[in-house]
């Protein structure tokens, strides 16, 4: 198996899906001639041409809605938001239109659109360009929200997203683009709405996804040196949320830490903790911890920004408080 970057995995998934189905096309700002702001679609414009790799004006609302409309009328658009921060301009199209038409019109129509959106902090881009607003989107039934933490999952999940009949927001953490991992040559998919244990352990359960997964795995390696074996569960999909592996692991370790890059308040962690206490109350042996972004806007200064973000040390500290 080849070891490729997460960027390459996403790029390969897009290319292979475009080759497989001529109704799949890409639209967004700078996706064509420029080759994608994060170079995910480099070479696509030459390979597929204007019709299937469409540069749009800087118009997030109509990117969100035209992709949904094209999907309603039979195509399989993959719309790229330059970053997830700008997808917030299209929130109404994503949440009120793409995610609602199937239900609201009694099943008469579907909107099989994929929205790709790179995001996340840690790159000194300041308060407006560093959000991890995943939870905002994950709040709404009707939308599917996935966010991979490995190249393998990125490729397989993106293929599932493109083949899904439902609207999917595919969140890419920009600091993971260079992450390498094994990805098979042959066609495969990763199912949406299925969590997975990424590392086995018996002392504590760490639940996370995306960049938080990598932070958690690093923390787990350090903890192992100190004799603490952490089991790391990767959610992969935020909606639908599969609690199965997390619950199973928790019933074995009786301790859990939830790690996410978004803000702590009203976050993914809050949801997971609520589900653990609702569904596994008798197994709680210690407070369930949340490691998340501080409750501040993200500053430019690298030192200050890093203080606010999650890292392995914070995960280790949280684990040590409960084991």
């Amino acid at each position, binding site marked *: 198996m080849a070891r490729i970057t997460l960027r390459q995995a996403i790029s390969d998934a897009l290319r292979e899906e475009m080759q497989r189905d001529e109704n799949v096309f890409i639209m967004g700002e700078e996706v064509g001639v420029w080759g994608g702001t994060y170079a995910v679609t480099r070479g696509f414009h030459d390979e597929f041409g204007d019709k299937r790799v469409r540069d749009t004006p800087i118009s997030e609302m109509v990117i969100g*809605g035209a992709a949904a*409309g*094209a999907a309603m*009328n039979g195509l399989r658009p993959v719309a790229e938001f330059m970053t997830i921060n700008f997808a917030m301009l299209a929130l*109404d199209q994503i949440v009120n*239109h793409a995610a609602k038409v199937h239900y*609201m*019109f*009694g099943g*008469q129509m579907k909107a099989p659109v994929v929205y790709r959106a790179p995001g996340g902090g840690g790159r000194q881009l300041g308060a407006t360009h560093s959000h991890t607003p995943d939870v905002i989107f994950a709040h709404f039934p009707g939308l599917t929200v996935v966010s991979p933490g490995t190249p393998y999952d990125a490729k397989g999940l993106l293929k599932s997203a493109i083949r899904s009949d439902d609207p999917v927001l595919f969140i890419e953490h920009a600091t993971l683009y260079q992450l390498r991992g094994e990805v098979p040559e042959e066609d495969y998919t990763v199912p949406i709405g299925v969590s997975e244990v990424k590392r086995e352990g018996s002392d504590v359960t760490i639940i996370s996804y995306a960049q938080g997964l990598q932070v958690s795995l690093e923390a787990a390696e350090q903890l192992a040196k100190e004799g603490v074996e952490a089991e790391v569960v990767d959610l992969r999909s935020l909606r639908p949320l599969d609690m199965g592996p997390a619950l199973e692991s928790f019933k074995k370790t009786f301790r859990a830490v939830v790690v996410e890059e978004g803000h702590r308040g009203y976050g993914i962690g809050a949801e997971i903790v609520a589900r653990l206490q609702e569904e596994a109350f008798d197994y709680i042996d210690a407070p369930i911890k949340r490691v998340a972004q501080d409750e501040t806007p993200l500053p430019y200064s690298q030192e200050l920004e890093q203080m606010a973000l999650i890292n392995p040390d914070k995960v280790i500290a949280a684990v040590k408080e409960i084991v």
Partner: protein
Amino acid sequence: MDKETLLDWYRQMVLIRRFEQRSAELYQQGKIGGFLHLYIGQEAIAVGSIAAKAEGDHVITAYRDHGHAIAVGADLNAVMAELLGKQTGVSMGKGGSMHLADVSRRYWGGYAVVGGHLPLATGIALAEQYRETENAVLCYMGDGATNIGYFHESLNLAGVWQLPVLWIIENNNYGMGTSVDRASAAPILDKAKAYGMNGEQIDGMNVMEVYETTQDCLQKIRDGEGPQFVEMITYRYEGHSMGDPLRYRTKEEVEKWREDDPIGVLERHILDEKAADQEALEAIDGEVEERIEAAVQFAEESPLPEPEALYSGIYVEA
């Protein structure tokens, strides 16, 4: 215009008018809930423009959507049942008055966020261009919708990509209680020019004019001239929705517009052209009355949605 067509339009316009009046009664009786936006006064627009559409063309509009549903030929029973929130409604009781659709007739429905359907229309048109068909999209909106960001992004993108969309502005002079001159910095037609379209302003109370203009615009789109824009001047005789205090306009103003009542205009034309006599028109009124009562009866007798419906159809893939 041949006699049958004129009488058919008359029938449809009276059907919409009576449907709306009957809906208002049902609303007062508490049988219809939520918001109810009546189309009374604007009937010539939906009827005349949809008469000009080819079978493959698409229709999409805002929440004032009963007229378009009826004009595309959606099942009247199912439309009324939707207003009553019944399982037999066009949207299975999940949409209500503001969200009627009949995708089998390429009617993508009514949308309740002002301007929210304009990007969808753009995308529906993109799919037709992508497949290299001759089909166009008729996208209706109110005057108020020309002030929202969606309008500008959608008209711009449709212009850049030369998409087959006909933007139809139903200028009824007001967005809720705010008149056009208090809400739009420039005349609406000028906005078309900003996005590369000439645009046209016509009398939206005259169904013949609406039909002819729509036909011309659709022909231009099919001839490859890109998106088109038409502002149809009209008036809504009732409030914005039920319970509108109507503080923003005078009775005299409403009375003045009643002289242009689109049904009256067509009726005079039919009588002048001797396409039919008063008696024939009254016969149509009678038929319409029966159709409406049958629809109300159907809706009232229809079952409520099953409780399971709440949880079904959130996703296509279970």
